[in-house]
């Protein structure tokens, strides 16, 4: 009978907490959105599955050896760890109170060597870091995975349309207003007492408006790792929603006549220009904004591999197999951050709300900038391509093309919209660099 009780007490059902059950449902919802609604399935399938794995009770896949020991170890071990952390446990309190106070101590400013000593005790009695915790530490904690994905994106990007019409870079710059407006929005909500975000967290939320998954993950891993799960989910979910979010804003801000504007044919771009461009961008980054160097450096490297034409194998690996491998690990790592205590908060709702505002403002700013440029310059610019300034390559460009075709079925804007689209990638990486410089 005792054995049966032990078995029952070790089962998932016995230990399942309400929060974990809710998070497993969230994971299933993400899988549903990915599989049946085709919301960025390449990312949301691993993220959703990782979220379910992270919330399996007792398995502790997403927590460190120390946390795991605190949660399940025997009282003797707990006392040892408390001694290592330089704290004492109230002998009268029960076991759960011990665990809680240890958790508080371990996560609230203990000297690193004390933490290491406690960790050694946990490892010594046979606890180990969870699988997803290790993934997270290697892939995102070190910043590697988002950067490798950025390299792959660089290897997939054709800068031809941008080089043919460099002024479209301004559209990509204008659309970054969404990032900073949202940052200010988050700060304003905090000062009104609605939410509670620090400036770092506000910056990480704002970057959702850059509509660039790897950049969002990179920035939030540096500035606000505790919000990473919510921010990554918001960024990828809204990227999938670009075809729904953008068109109403674009129609609202433009007249029928403006939407019908035809743009002049792009000039052909020589191969030499395409080879020189990533190198030039790299030098400019090195000279003016070294903090954007990790993101833009990898981006330029990927693009150079594509354009130089002598390392086709490397370029092929970067844009296919490597990016796929890293996507799997990145997705699972993001999923590991979907734990009940950090995700099921009021702040997550705030992040989701602010994220969609960021997309809207970015789109509007891009369109308005295009209208402004139309006033000053001689070459006509269809304001719709301004909306492609939020990155979301190539979805945003396709949306601009589609809305353009609705007004005039012979007006193909896709190639013109690719210019601001890739400019948006550069713009949001620059914005990320500024934020990391200012706050990191």
């Amino acid at each position: 009978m005792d054995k049966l009780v032990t078995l029952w007490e070790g089962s998932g059902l016995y230990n399942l907490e309400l929060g974990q059950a809710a998070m497993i449902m969230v994971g299933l919802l993400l899988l549903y959105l990915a599989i049946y609604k085709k919301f960025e399935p390449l990312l949301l399938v691993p993220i959703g599955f990782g979220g379910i794995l992270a919330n399996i009770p007792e398995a502790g896949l997403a927590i460190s050896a120390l946390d795991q020991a605190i949660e399940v170890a025997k009282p003797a071990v707990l006392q040892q760890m408390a001694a290592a952390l330089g704290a004492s446990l109230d002998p009268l309190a029960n076991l759960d109170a011990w665990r809680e106070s240890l958790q508080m101590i371990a996560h609230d400013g203990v000297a690193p060597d004390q933490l290491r000593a406690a960790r050694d005790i946990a490892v010594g009695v046979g606890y180990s870091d969870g699988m997803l915790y290790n993934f997270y530490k290697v892939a995102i904690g070190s910043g590697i995975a988002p950067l490798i994905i950025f390299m792959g994106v660089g290897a997939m990007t054709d800068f031809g349309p941008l080089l043919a019409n460099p002024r479209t870079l301004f559209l990509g710059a204008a659309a970054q207003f969404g990032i900073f407006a949202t940052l200010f929005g988050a700060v304003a909500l905090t000062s009104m007492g609605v939410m509670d975000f620090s400036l770092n967290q506000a910056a990480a939320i704002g970057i959702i408006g850059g509509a660039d998954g790897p950049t969002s993950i990179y920035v939030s891993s540096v500035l606000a790792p505790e919000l990473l799960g919510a921010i990554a989910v918001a960024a990828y979910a809204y990227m999938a929603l670009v075809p729904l979010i953008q068109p109403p804003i674009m129609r609202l801000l433009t007249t029928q006549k403006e939407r019908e504007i035809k743009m002049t044919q792009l000039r052909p771009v020589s191969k030499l220009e395409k080879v020189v461009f990533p190198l030039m961008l790299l030098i400019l980054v090195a000279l003016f904004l070294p903090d954007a160097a990790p993101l833009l450096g990898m981006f330029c490297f990927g693009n150079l591999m594509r354009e130089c034409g002598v390392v086709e194998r490397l370029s092929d690996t970067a844009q296919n197999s490597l990016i796929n491998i890293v996507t799997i690990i990145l997705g699972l790592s993001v999923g590991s951050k979907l734990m009940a205590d950090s995700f099921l908060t009021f702040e997550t709702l705030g992040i989701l709300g602010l994220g969609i505002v960021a997309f809207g403002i970015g789109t509007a700013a891009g369109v308005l900038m295009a209208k402004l440029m139309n006033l000053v310059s001689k070459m006509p610019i269809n304001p719709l391509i301004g909306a492609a300034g939020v990155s979301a390559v190539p979805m945003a460009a396709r949306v601009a093309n589609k809305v353009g075709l609705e007004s005039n079925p012979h007006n193909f804007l896709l190639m013109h919209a690719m210019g601001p689209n890739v400019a948006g990638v550069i713009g949001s990486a620059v914005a990320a660099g500024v934020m990391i410089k200012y706050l990191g």
Partner: protein
Amino acid sequence: MQDYELLQDGLALMALGMGVVFVFLTILVISVTLMSKLIDRFQPAPIAVDASKKSPSSPAPVSQNDEMLAVISAAVHRYRSTRRR
């Protein structure tokens, strides 16, 4: 009071960020335009560029003959030099 400071910080970061993004991309626009002009001047007509770049992979018949000759003579030379040893 602290809220006010936070708000101010947010506003400052917004202005600084947008400023830097615009300045950087403006510099990029200028440099791209300059680069295109330079390349256009020193290597005019993209067709010429293509021909010179592509010659190793899709060469004209004459140059292929030359290349073949070079390869063959190199091989013969090597063969002879190894023989002599």
